């Protein structure tokens, strides 16, 4: 596990290095702060900053981190989503991964009702990839104004370029602050204007902070420098009169009785070896107190009530990987109970899927699995998912995988996410090929099949790795297992910015 954490850390280091020594130095020489320095000054001193999707664009042609930093931070006591361009990476331009990461951050803001603060300094779209970004990028502006329509404040702090489409970020936000001699906010810069109309104009008169603050009115606050801009940004948040809608945590919070360090040894790196999730839960929840629900029924899933950082939660955790009928029904009931009491749910995934086989199909495993997926999909309490091992097949769905829109989803470095395990998938393909050969009377090439199986196993193995999934923004980041309690605490606190009202209507179905 430590090796995997170290590997992850080395990739984080790549992301943190931004555009590298040369561009970082140049940026500093212009008297500008680096993106994480800006964030450091924006958030309340000593509060946590949970960076989201830090390894977006991993294993892609683009710089790891996708030239944007997003995360949840506390500004003047209000939890906000911060979206900050990384100007040292290709001028903070947007590639398809930047877009995904940006949209995911806006989604997190929407589903959790978190104010959004944009730290804008972007050269606009990465033009060679415009085909993949131009059309969907419109979502950014739509999301921003829909957030505003939902009463979620949006703020743009303009540190540099926000041109062409980018100009709509300050344009669509509730508040805009622009920095003297740095902000450049226009639809068309001097060359484009010259080409379009023949007019000679300079940057400042087309889109400088002074112009927008005094003439166009696009800028609400004129900042003399970056520090002033961050001060004004904090001042705006302080005056939002922001209140959370969800439950407040208990005042007294006990730390778990067991050491989080042990998680390194508890989680299996070899996913064929199951582990007892109670060992994990004991290291995540307040006072290590866990009131288990139906402990003797459907024992391959563990359900129960606990508190994390003072928030009451229901926990669902896979025990032996497989979901049978009883497990599905137990989970369904538990999810309904959580909705009755408006209690947020934590999903701890280590799931290999719903059970297959004649006996189970005939007993209606599909119907029972459907119940669980139905319950997860229609539950309205906050869901937070941690993939702490396997996440295969429809088990991923039942345990609130990415497409079931958990408020947050984090992955441990040892996790694997795929429709099925690499050997199984390669084996299935091989059997299908063998059947096809037999059906057409062709001779089956065993040697080619073995080669093919190896290739596919390797491909699926690689593509189901945590790093690969996180690179595609299929989670909100890989976390050190020892940080799980902290991450859940932050996520729960952020999630309770929005009401946690459960879905009701029918009574709880006893299954």
């Amino acid at each position, binding site marked *: 596990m430590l090796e995997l954490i170290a590997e992850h850390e080395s990739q984080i280091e790549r992301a943190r290095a931004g555009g590298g020594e040369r561009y970082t130095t140049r940026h500093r020489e212009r008297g500008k702060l680096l993106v994480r320095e800006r964030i450091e000054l924006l958030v309340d001193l000593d509060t946590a900053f949970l960076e989201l999707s830090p390894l977006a664009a991993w294993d892609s042609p683009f710089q790891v981190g996708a030239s944007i930093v997003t995360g949840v931070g506390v500004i003047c006591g209000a939890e906000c989503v911060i979206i900050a361009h990384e100007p040292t990476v290709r001028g903070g331009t947007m590639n398809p991964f930047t877009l995904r990461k940006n949209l995911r951050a806006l989604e997190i803001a929407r589903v959790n009702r978190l104010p959004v603060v944009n730290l804008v300094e972007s050269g606009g779209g990465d033009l060679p990839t415009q085909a993949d970004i131009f059309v969907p990028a419109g979502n950014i502006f739509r999301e921003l104004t829909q957030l505003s329509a939902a009463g979620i404040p949006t703020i743009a702090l303009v540190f540099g370029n926000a041109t062409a489409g980018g100009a709509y970020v300050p344009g669509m936000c509730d508040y805009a602050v622009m920095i003297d001699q740095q902000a450049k906010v226009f639809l068309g810069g001097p060359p484009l204007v010259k080409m379009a109309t023949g007019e000679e104009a300079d940057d400042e008169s087309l889109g400088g902070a002074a112009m927008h603050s005094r003439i166009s009115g696009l800028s609400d606050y004129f900042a003399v420098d970056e520090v002033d801009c961050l001060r004004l940004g904090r001042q705006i948040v302080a005056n939002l009169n922001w209140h959370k809608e969800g439950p407040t945590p208990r005042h007294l919070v006990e730390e778990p009785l067991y050491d989080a360090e042990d998680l390194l040894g508890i989680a299996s790196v070899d996913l064929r070896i199951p582990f007892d999730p109670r060992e994990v839960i004991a290291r995540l929840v307040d006072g290590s107190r866990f009131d288990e629900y139906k402990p003797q029924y459907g024992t391959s899933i563990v359900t129960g009530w606990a508190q994390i950082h003072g928030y009451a939660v229901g926990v669902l955790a896979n025990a032996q990987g497989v979901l049978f009928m009883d497990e599905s029904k137990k989970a369904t009931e538990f999810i309904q109970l959580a909705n009755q009491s408006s209690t947020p749910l934590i999903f701890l995934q280590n799931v290999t899927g719903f059970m297959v086989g004649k006996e189970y199909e005939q007993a209606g495993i599909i119907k029972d699995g459907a119940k669980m997926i139905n319950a997860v999909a229609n539950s309205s309490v906050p869901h937070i998912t941690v993939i702490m091992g396997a996440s295969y097949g429809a088990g991923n769905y039942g345990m609130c995988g990415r497409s079931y829109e958990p408020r947050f989803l984090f992955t441990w470095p040892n996790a694997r996410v795929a429709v099925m395990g690499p050997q199984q998938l390669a084996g299935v393909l091989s059997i299908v090929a063998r059947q096809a050969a037999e059906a057409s009377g062709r001779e089956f090439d065993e040697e080619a099949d073995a080669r093919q199986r190896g290739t596919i196993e390797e491909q699926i193995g690689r593509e189901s790795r945590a790093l690969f999934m996180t690179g595609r923004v299929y989670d909100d980041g890989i976390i050190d297992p020892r940080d799980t309690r902290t991450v859940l605490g*932050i996520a729960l606190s952020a999630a309770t910015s929005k009401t946690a009202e459960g879905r009701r209507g029918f009574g709880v179905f006893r299954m």
Partner: protein
Amino acid sequence: MKKLLVANRAEIARRVFRTAAAMGIKTVAVYSDPDSGAPHVREADEAVRLPGATSAETYLSIPKIIEAALATNADAVHPGYGFLSENADFATACADAGLTFVGPPVEAIRTMGSKIAAKEMMARAGVPVLPGGVVNDGYRPEPSDYPVLVKAAFGGGGRGMRIVHSLNDLDDAVAAAGREAQAAFGDGTVFVERYLQDPRHIEVQIFGDTNGRVLHLFERECSIQRRYQKVIEEAPSPAVNDELRAELCAAAVSAGEALGYVGAGTVEFVLDPAGRFYFLEVNTRLQVEHPVTELVTGLDLVELQLRVAAGEPLTISPTLDGHAIEARLYAEDPTADFAPMSGRIDRFEIPSSDGVRIDSGYETGSTVSTFYDAMIAKVIAYGPTRERAAQRLASALDAAELHGPPTNRDLLVGVLRHPEFLAGFTDTGFLARHSPAELIGPDHDPLSAVAAALASQAHRRLTAPVQRHIPSGWRNVSTGPRQVAYIEGEQIIEVSYVLTRSGIAIQIGGEPIADARLEHADATSVVLSVGGMSRRYGVHLVADACYVDGPVISTRLVPIDRLPEPGSTAAAGSLLAPLPGSVIRVLVAANDAVVAGQTIAILEAMKMEHPIVSPVTGLISELLITVGQQMDTGQPLAIIEETTDG
């Protein structure tokens, strides 16, 4: 005596109230506007406002005080020390208004108020005196008399005093001392007398009653002085043996008898190394340092004063037991020539301990104003021996939490623990021989700022509106350390820290602190171990400062705003007022060229003239002051554009 008005403020007013209350006498306080919330006002049965702020408008205003006494039906007035305590006109006014003045007869005050007349009378009574006279009356010291001391004839506390080494400087010194005396005491008469180099200051407490009996309560030594003001006083004197004590006390009693003295008085002498003593003056009041006499005699001097004033005869026969030392705690900066300091006291706690008495005029939340003397409290320790008393006093002062304007506490502790002091080698040159820097010892502990930063950090976490129990400054992708900066004195100290599961990483001014471990941090204390050595810091956070009491020093750190409003920081080249006071002279005009060291203006604070000099050679680009303006510490006086050579 049924109701006593105390025409004074702060600790002495409280001291008198304490005894009066114990004797069943009702009390009346008077107070100026800045003192309206002061402890002495609360502790009296009644309090009368004296409109105004300056001493002249308030505690020195005879009509206002007499009016207050009459309005409250007081039948007696205690003047305390300072202010009107030795003002014959006030004593007369009290008598005229039918009020008992708790003090000696008017004639004694008048005679002793003039140091010149006092000396003449003492010489006649056979008390040894130093040669001297009034320059303006034609007296010229003999060349062999130099150096001579120029002193105000009326007044005390060292104000207006000057040492003159040669005839050439005499007239200037007399003129300057005259000006200062005029401003301070309303009479510019000065006189000169032979100056003794670093004598000891020994004084004898006397008491007289209305039956003509004058007795003594032994001597006190008050040699530890700065700027002619006593800082540490003790009884008995380590330099006085029984034989000398008998001589001194006999001389003091003769002086009292010559005066027909009634009430509490002090006959002051200087003692030269050969054991010869000379009359200095008689103070016709209760002294600041009276508690040391109380502790070694077991008597209550205020009670004796009140009984004598009520006409009771003195029936006591004082005996001397043990040793007592008093330290005067001032709001001042010993390293800046003892400049008086002012400001809010955010915490004033001296833990009570065996044999330690605290006479304080201030408490947590009080403000030391620029209008009055900056003495905050007197701390007095008693012990069976001098060593024990000194040790108790030093420990009490050391353990005090004094959070507010800078004080002389460290200097006092330094004196009390100095081998020379402990050996009894005290004379008036002590504080000239031993610089404040030497006595104060280390004045900087870089870990103080770290303690301030970590306590502030803990405070922010404990009061966080959200995510209160999330680890401090947690990051899944590090964004660099938390960075904070403080102003300590004139230095800026930058501290950065990162707390992770593997411990703490600290930098001070960019330099990492090796082998640091944070053992504990909350909003009021930090325990930090560096190189295996664990140190505890008490921290007190207030709105605009952090006070840190550490094992090495106590200090005040002002946090620097991470995101300052533009224009809120002082412009480059600003010359800031080093202490609060009023501008009495401006010596330059805008656009004047000035050289480094040139005096720009003179600030008057606590009756002292402080020249403000330009730190650089340059041009006065902006002059921000006019004569009469009241300045606060740190307020800009002028902006000087430095010019470079060439």
